[in-house]
């Protein structure tokens, strides 16, 4: 449904988005993950027609964002980061206005606004000015704004940032409910959130996609490996690498800096084989002193951290 090809955005010297290609299917709930400043917001702004791309194309269906901006905007509901809304307006007036701009017929506007007030639990604040609302309510007004025309594609930029845990859960519930029928793309830097709500996760770092896959897949990828970390005395690095590498199940042997005659090793291993007995046998046969020996399974969090580490 959405095809992003070689998308690039530069601000002067800095490259915010660097050659990003992404296909998003209809009905997908896609989480765009990445540290702050990774290029998430810029990507979403280009996708929603707010920013022109420097290079590459974004197509929605068979229309190009550069030439058919208006008709694509009609199809997309967008909630910018921290929900910037007209502070002086009443919630009701604001939503009615959005309904008018969205081209909803005057006789249907009231019904639509009522319906959204119910979905987003806004009934109590309809008569309040937006600047009087708490952050959670403001975010929900923003969500109602985005969902006004019942768009095919819903784009949300950090919809849960700055909310308390209860509000976060409420927003997530709404996203999940909407995501059953619509395409939802949202950005976040909270992993558990992406894990809980998305079908698919794209991790973006320094303007590039560094991981892309179904949530389950990434999790499996994450849990598909574990690391065995060992600290030995009386051994030397070269011998360790030579002896541990051939062990079945060991993918990679990383060595740490030796200190005081100690050798620290990180063995990256497949999840389905337990290499510990074999590794221990080698250590025993060589009569090395064993200082540390423990297994760390990799969570989505470590994957994220590894992928988005500086340099």
């Amino acid at each position, binding site marked *: 449904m959405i095809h992003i090809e070689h998308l690039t955005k530069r601000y002067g010297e800095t490259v915010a988005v660097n050659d990003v290609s992404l296909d998003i299917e209809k009905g997908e709930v896609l989480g765009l993950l990445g540290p702050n400043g990774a290029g998430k917001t810029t990507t979403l702004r280009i996708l929603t*027609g*707010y920013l022109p791309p420097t290079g590459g194309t974004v197509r929605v269906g068979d229309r190009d964002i550069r030439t058919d901006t208006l008709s694509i*905007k009609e199809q997309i509901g967008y909630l910018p980061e921290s*929900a*910037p809304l*007209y502070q002086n*307006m009443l919630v009701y007036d604001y939503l009615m*206005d959005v309904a008018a701009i969205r*081209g909803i017929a005057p006789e249907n506007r009231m019904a639509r606004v009522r319906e959204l007030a119910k979905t987003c639990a806004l009934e109590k604040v309809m008569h309040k000015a937006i600047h009087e609302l708490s952050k959670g309510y403001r975010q929900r007004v923003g969500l109602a704004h985005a969902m006004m025309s019942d768009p095919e594609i819903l784009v949300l930029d950090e919809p849960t940032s700055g909310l308390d845990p209860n509000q976060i859960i409420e927003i997530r519930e709404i996203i999940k409910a909407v995501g059953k029928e619509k395409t939802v793309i949202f950005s976040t830097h909270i992993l558990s959130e992406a894990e809980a709500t998305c079908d698919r996760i794209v991790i973006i770092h320094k303007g590039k996609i560094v991981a892309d896959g179904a949530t389950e897949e990434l999790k499996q990828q994450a849990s598909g490996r574990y690391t065995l970390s060992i600290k030995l005395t009386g051994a030397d690095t070269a011998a360790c690498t030579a002896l541990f590498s051939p062990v079945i199940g060991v993918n990679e042997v990383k060595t740490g800096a030796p200190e005081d005659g100690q050798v620290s090793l990180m063995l990256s291993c497949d999840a389905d084989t337990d290499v510990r007995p074999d590794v221990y046998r080698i250590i025993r046969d060589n009569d090395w002193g064993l200082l540390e020996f423990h297994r760390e399974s990799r969570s989505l969090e470590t994957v994220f951290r590894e992928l988005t580490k500086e340099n």
Partner: protein
Amino acid sequence: MTAKRIYPIFKREFGAYFVSPVAYIVISIFLILAGWFFFSTFFLYNQAELRNFFALLPLLFAFIIPAITMGLVADELNVGTYETLLTLPVSIRDVVVGKFLAALAFSAVMLAPTLVYAVSISFLGELDWGPVIGGFIGALFLAGAFAAIGIFASSLTKNQIIAFIIGTAICFILTLIGKMLFFLPDSMLGFFQYISADRHFQNIAKGVLDSRDFLYFISVIFLSLYLAALSMREKF
């Protein structure tokens, strides 16, 4: 650019003027200043005419109208609502035109109470209605031109005060340039005379409805709004 999309924007902006106290303050200041300057000398002249009122108007508009328009774009850029607005299915042109019409309508509301001057003066003596009608029509065109300039100024910055100062500066220059021809080189006289908003306005206010004067105001409106749209497009 369609009326369907411009109208909600116009309606929102126009309504927004009246929910904040700024609108009432601006209208009050305008009416107090206009009333004071006009009527303080009115009875001395002992003439049943509004000529002095219209002579005063460009100068008053030059700083009142930019105050009306200063927040129209600058505030949206500052608060971030610009992003929310422009990702709705509207184009920059719709936004600019909608905001312009709102500012123009607000100016008309502000000007409306001064129609009372004409009515009350007509009781005092024989009022020539031609120049009065011309004057009010001209005032709307003048307000439109200054509002367009104000919107352009507002689109240049996030800061309303800076937008106000830029807008006022341009409007003042266009108002006063006709009175400073003495200081300007002879060869450029025609040009400076032509760009003087005051001169074109006074022509209309005399009751002489010449298409060239209207064309001047319409050109200023179009040019300013075009520049505003250009500057908004570059705001990324």
